[in-house]
């Protein structure tokens, strides 16, 4: 049994209106080939969960230029003028989340937690509309899980069982997102036979991955 799929197969489930998570940090570690295919397919009204909006010509940043995003949940959009313009003119809805909170909210969804308590954002606009709890004299915000219909992951190495290994700073949000979506597609530059990756070196267990796409 292999999880290796063609890109067409792997993205066949993607439809208008879905919530997608895409790994990367200013597009480093972004699954570029999968994103380009989303642009080609032209699905619309996507909600994007990503660390940032990247740059207009790089990775998931292209999805703003192509007009496929309805809403973005991210920590930063300062390097993508298109995303900023779309926020200002109301084309897209934006939820800004502190980066560490974004990581924990995604992790919470993947881990079956109902949420986490964080001191980040207390006393700022981030706390608006959120439950606050005081524990031991310190105030925390209750931050809720973020999950997606589909996660698009960038791995350096995969095996046929879906096990993933990331490379250097391209790891970032990828392992968290791979746990937090109903359907998980990973692009990998190298696909090995099952058993060829040292079980101690696997960073995302294959059991959470649905499809692997080999990219050159």
């Amino acid at each position: 049994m292999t999880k290796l799929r063609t890109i067409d197969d792997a993205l066949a489930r993607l439809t208008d209106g879905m919530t997608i998570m895409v790994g990367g940090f200013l597009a480093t570690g972004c699954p570029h080939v999968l994103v380009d295919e989303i642009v080609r397919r032209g699905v619309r009204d996507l909600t994007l969960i990503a660390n940032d909006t990247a740059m207009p010509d790089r990775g998931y940043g292209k999805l703003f230029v192509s007009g496929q995003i309805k809403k973005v949940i991210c920590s930063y959009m300062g390097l993508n003028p298109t995303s900023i313009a779309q926020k200002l003119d109301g084309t897209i809805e934006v939820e800004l989340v502190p980066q560490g909170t974004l990581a924990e909210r995604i992790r919470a969804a993947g881990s079956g937690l109902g949420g986490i308590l964080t001191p980040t954002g207390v006393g700022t606009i981030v706390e608006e509309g959120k439950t606050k709890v005081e524990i031991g004299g310190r105030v925390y915000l209750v931050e809720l899980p973020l999950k997606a219909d589909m996660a698009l992951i960038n791995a350096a190495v995969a095996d046929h069982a879906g096990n993933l290994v990331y490379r250097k700073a391209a790891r970032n949000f990828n392992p968290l997102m791979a746990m937090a979506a109903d359907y998980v597609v990973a692009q990998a530059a190298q696909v090995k036979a099952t058993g060829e990756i040292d079980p101690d070196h696997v960073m995302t267990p294959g059991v959470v991955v649905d499809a692997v796409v080999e990219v050159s």
Partner: protein
Amino acid sequence: MDPRELIVKRVAKELKDGQVVNLGIGLPTQVAKHLPEDVRIILQSENGFVGLGNPPAPGAEDPDIVNAGGQPVTINPGGTFFDSAMSFAIIRGGHVDATVLGGLQVDEEGNLANWATPGKVFGMGGAMDLVVGAKRVIVAMEHLTKDGKPKIVKRCSLPLTATKEVDLLVTDMGVIEFTSDGPVLREIAPGLTVDDVVAATEATLIVPDDVVTMSV
């Protein structure tokens, strides 16, 4: 057939090819030996890996590869190791398709008690997380206590493991499915009548017309 063998063989039929399964210590562990030839499951071990394999040959034990009971095991190709937070993220996050656990009591509401008896409250280990987190909870236990008392009761008197999480109960007398209407008797053991099973059960069972004989 030995009553425990009947239970184990019947549970084995519930597992599907490719599923990620956590088997509790004791009786449930035996399920792995009785899977149909065309069914390969991926075993999750809460001490920190997926891909639990058969016990090693004598002399080939690795002290760092043990199951959750501390017994030497092996890891199959494609298996991976991870830490306890990831292990329970997989469990609690809904990434385990099924868990098979032993039981002390199951009641009409699908509540399970399987970790403590009066005066013997020595730890739930990972059981509470497994019952809450696994997509499907299968309890494998003998229908009556050693002194002939019902274990399927109106209301558990022993400390609970979790509430309303049991999906299927397989005993040496029958198979009971927990539905929103209550526990439904689906199958009875060879040689028994429905009345035999109902009489041995304190909980009120729903008995449809099409109860069949357990086949293993």
